[in-house]
């Protein structure tokens, strides 16, 4: 029966090509616009560490004397607090990290030096965030402690500097220091660059920079502080730092601190540890208050920072509203199309077709329009994503259609057209055969 309905549907669509084209176009444009924007939303709001994120937390204490227990703590930690919490080693893994701009002098003369972002982190960074290595591996905790002059570089930089060869053992000149490469990463592109997310609530929705690529050079935390001393940026300060760029003893917050706690039962204990630490700091007079400690999970922290850029969200809403209008439009056109064939319906009913059969026939026709619209919509989605990849935004290179969104394109197109077809099909199957036959 399905084959017969399909044949009928094809004939019917062929009979009025303009109307068919209009409906397919409406569905295709609506689906194309919604799927393009929804794909971007989907890519930007995913879990950057699937399977691990629920064990990752971002503890915060508040050293700012101007804040109170009722205020939200500052987005990063001061050096002392970060160092204390990190040294306590009370979590399964813990990492301190800080970013800075560093001058990279390429060994082969002739090329000018460039400034590039450098990440300085403690050794757990790689194991905690599942960072994949192509050559070599991470440095050891000893290297952290001894401020070893070592570094890990990304695949991108390895391609650029060493043509993708195994560069472990080669030397990079960072500012005035030589560091030895101990590891080269595989392509690694977390979305967002979660470990560097902060300050989202001050960004007025313009958060696309949270989707930047990871830094090309990664050094041990203390090594970075030595090598690039004087070039560190604070997140904020409650007083002018006495030595801008050197922040170890400054009234500033500038260090990010992440912990991994595998056992969910121990999360509360760590939370208490953070609160106790703040209370103890208040007792010795370093903090003025200690009641506003926080420990958000990774996803909670991303939510708190509203990582999804607001114009991406707005575009998605617009596209969905547009799809809704396309659907209303399609309902109208299908109604016109189906009822125009009232005579034919009357004849089929008189020859014994049940209402369900008529209904099924028209649903098949709607579904077919949806399928054709879905194919066109998929092409439009690919075009839309291509357009986004050409834009100068940090997440441009992420904009690709993955399998779930590809499938969703067709499910949405067919689902939407079935939805739009249902009402006209109900009207069609309620046609009274006798009236129609009389007027034939």
């Amino acid at each position: 029966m399905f084959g017969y309905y399909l044949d009928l549907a094809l004939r019917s669509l062929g009979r009025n090509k303009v109307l068919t084209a209009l409906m397919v176009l409406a569905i295709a444009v609506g689906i194309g616009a919604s799927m393009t924007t929804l794909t971007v939303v989907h890519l930007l709001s995913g879990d950057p560490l699937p399977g691990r994120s629920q064990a990752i937390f971002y503890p915060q204490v508040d050293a700012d004397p101007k804040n109170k227990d009722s205020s939200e703590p500052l987005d990063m930690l001061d050096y002392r607090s970060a160092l204390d919490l990190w040294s306590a080693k009370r979590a399964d893994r813990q990492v301190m990290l800080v970013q800075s701009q560093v001058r990279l002098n390429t060994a082969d003369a002739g090329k000018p030096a460039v400034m590039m972002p450098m990440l300085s982190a403690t050794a757990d960074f790689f194991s905690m965030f599942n960072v994949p290595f192509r050559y070599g591996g991470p440095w050891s905790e000893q290297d952290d402690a001894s401020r070893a002059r070592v570094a890990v570089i990304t695949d991108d930089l390895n391609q650029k500097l060493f043509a993708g060869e195994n560069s472990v053992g080669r030397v990079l000149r960072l500012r005035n220091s030589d560091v030895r490469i101990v590891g080269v990463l595989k392509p690694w592109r977390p979305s967002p660059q979660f470990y560097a997310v902060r300050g989202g609530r001050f960004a007025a929705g313009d958060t696309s920079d949270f989707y930047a690529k990871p830094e090309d050079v990664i050094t041990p935390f203390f090594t970075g502080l030595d090598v690039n001393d004087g070039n560190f940026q604070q997140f904020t300060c409650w007083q002018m730092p006495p030595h801008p760029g050197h922040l170890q003893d400054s009234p500033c917050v500038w260090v990010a601190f992440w912990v991994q706690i595998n056992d969910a039962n121990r999360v509360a204990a760590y939370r208490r540890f953070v609160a106790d630490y703040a209370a103890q700091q208040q007792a010795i007079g370093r903090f003025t208050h200690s009641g506003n400690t926080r420990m958000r999970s990774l996803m909670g922290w991303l939510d708190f920072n509203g990582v999804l850029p607001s114009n991406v969200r707005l575009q998605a809403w617009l596209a969905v509203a547009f799809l809704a209008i396309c659907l209303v439009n399609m309902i109208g056109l299908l109604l016109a199309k189906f009822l125009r064939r009232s005579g034919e319906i009357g004849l089929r009913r008189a020859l014994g077709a049940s209402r369900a059969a008529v209904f099924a026939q028209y649903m098949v026709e709607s579904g077919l329009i949806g399928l054709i619209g879905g194919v066109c919509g998929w092409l439009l989605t690919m075009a839309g994503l291509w357009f986004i990849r050409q834009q100068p935004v940090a997440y441009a290179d992420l904009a690709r259609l993955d399998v779930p969104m590809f499938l969703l394109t067709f499910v949405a197109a067919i689902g939407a057209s079935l939805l739009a077809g249902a009402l006209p099909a109900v009207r069609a199957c309620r046609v009274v055969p006798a009236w129609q036959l009389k007027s034939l």
Partner: protein
Amino acid sequence: MTQFAPILSALRRHRLATALIALEIALACAVLCNACFLIVGQLRALHIESGVTESSLAVINLGCDGCKGADLNARVTTALRAVPGVQSVAVVNAVPFAQPAGYAGINLDHEHFIAVPHFYAGGPGAVETLGLQLVAGRAFQPEDFQTAELWLPQNASVWITRAFAERLWPGQDPLGKEFFSDQYHFRVVGVMAHLAPPDPGGGHGDSAGEWSVFVPVNPGGSLNGVYALRANPADLARVLREARAAAQKAAPEAVLDLQQSRTVPELRTDFFRQTRIMVGTLAGVIVALLLVTALGIVGLASFWVQQRRKQIGIRRAIGATRGDILHYFQAENFLIVTVGIAIGMVLTFALNLVLMKFYEVPRLPVYYLPVGALVLWGLGQLAVLAPALRASQVPPMVAARSV
């Protein structure tokens, strides 16, 4: 009004199709008004006045790690002044649409934090090079320029923008007034017409984004590495090219930031690229929306015309003119669109409320509604014209033929 009576009774027999068109118009009205409103907001941001003579301004940005500020400035400014076509060079810390140099929270009483303006700093000649317009107060004197080791001079005479003065001291004369940031103290000696912060609308200040302070600072110390150049607009691209090379030659140990060493018009274009894409997207949505709505009306109206051929024939046979038939369909469309607009107005305000809640969009001005209504009425009439004309061509013979 009498002509509406038969229309209404006819529509009563086509409730579903009527409701669909009305609903489509209503949704279109809501999206249209709000999208237009968003576009206007974005355009306003696009046309922000920077307060500097952008067309003749370029920037050179050098990152020099471990350089002596005064020495670097001396070498680079000498080299830049030697570039043919350069009218003036000044050491500054930032220019509009380039990398921000310093936002800092300020207070009026050492206690209550009040706003976060951007602090511009510039050496002698910076005011003329940037083209800042003073509307009240006095010009800077040589003794106003002090050396700053850390950030800015401890006690500085500054200019602020009119918008920022209005924020700090609404309705008062700002000249001679003081404000503080940490242990730094500022006295207002001049008011500028405009000076946008480097990233207007970037989360600091109000939506107009003109909370800026200009501090005179002696080059050297913390003020080094960023140089504003003034040249003839027609010459600017070449001057920048040569200035980049000259700066690199004068300070080989420094790193020239190519992203930031640009002409101000280029920096502005880059800064607003996202906004322009948003405007383009919104405009595209509006056009597509109007098109889809119009096509929907054409489709349904054609269907109705076809369905009513016999009735049209009868009306024509008993004396209705072609004009009568044409007007019938036009009036019918007008009626449906009016219902749609009425529902649409409610939806428009509902959507605006949602946007206000989540996107910090201001309240939609009421005059968008009549304008939106006119557009939709026009669209409806345009869309129905072809089917209505076809209806008016139905010959009276149709009535006789199939009876």
